[in-house]
C-alpha cells in the first residue's frame, strides 16, 4: 500500500495511511501515516464503536494538514486492550 501512497502523492494528491504495523511503515516510508497498536484488520478500532472509528479517521486527516516532513508517523494514543473493553466512545 505504501507504494500506491507514494505514487499518489507524487501525482499531487496529499495522502495519509492508517497502519497497525509500524515497522513495515517505517521500512516503506509513505509520506504520512498514523499508527494505532491494534489488531491487523482492525485499523479503525472495534466493531460497533463508531466514535472511535471517526476519531481515527479525523486524527489521520489532521496529520495531512499538519505534517511538515515526509515520512512522519504519528502515534495515536490508544491501546487495543482499552478499545476492546469499550473505551474511547464519544470522542470525536
Amino acid at each position, binding site marked *: *500500500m*505504501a*507504494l*500506491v*501512497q*507514494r*505514487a*499518489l*502523492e*507524487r*501525482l*499531487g*494528491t*496529499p*495522502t*495519509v*495511511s*492508517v*497502519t*497497525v*504495523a*509500524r*515497522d*513495515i511503515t*517505517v*521500512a*516503506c*516510508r*509513505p*509520506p*504520512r501515516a498514523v*499508527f494505532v*497498536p491494534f*489488531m*491487523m*484488520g*482492525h*485499523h*479503525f478500532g*472495534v*466493531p*460497533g464503536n*463508531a466514535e472511535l*472509528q*471517526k476519531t481515527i*479517521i*479525523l486524527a*489521520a*486527516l489532521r496529520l*495531512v*494538514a499538519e*505534517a*511538515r*516532513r*515526509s515520512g512522519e508517523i504519528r*502515534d495515536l*494514543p*490508544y*491501546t*487495543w486492550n482499552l478499545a476492546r473493553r469499550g473505551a474511547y466512545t464519544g470522542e470525536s
Partner: protein
Amino acid sequence: MAPSEQLRPDLWTTVNERYPGSMIRKSDAVALATLGVPLERARLCFVSSAGVQPIGTLPFDVAHPLGDFSYRTVPSNAVPSDLEIHQLKYPSAGATQDLNVIFPIERLQELVAAGRLGSLTPQFFSFIGYNMDPVRFERDFAERLAAAVHAQEPDVALLAPA
C-alpha cells in the same frame, strides 16, 4: 507518553524471513503534496487493501500463488450490505461484524453529513495486499491504481493497508 508497541512485533522481519524478497524498503522521501482546502471543504478518496468489493464483481483471486494485481472500485455511497470481502491474509472477524473497522465507509459518509469533511469521490478503491512480485506491484499496479485514484480528483486520500 511512549508510543504503544504494535501487537505483532517485528512483522517486516517475520514476513521477509518467510517470503524472502517480498518486502520492500524505501529510503527516499516523497515530496509532500499540499492540502489545498480545509478538510471541511475537501473531497476525500479512500483506498483499502482489505479485499472489500461490491457483491457481484469478480472476487479477488485469493488462490493464485503470486497474488492478484487488480483493483475494484467501490461506490462511496454504498452500504456495507452491498459489499463483501475476498481476502484471507488478515483477521477479518471484526470486519465481518462491522465492515467499518477496516473499511469505514459509513463513518466517512457521516463525517460528510456532519460537515467535518467536504465530500467523497464517487468511487473508492480496493485491492488485496498479498502478492509476491514487488517489482510488478511497484512499476505497474501502484502506478495504475494511483492514476485511477487521482482521476477521481480528490483533495486528500486516506489509505488503509490491511
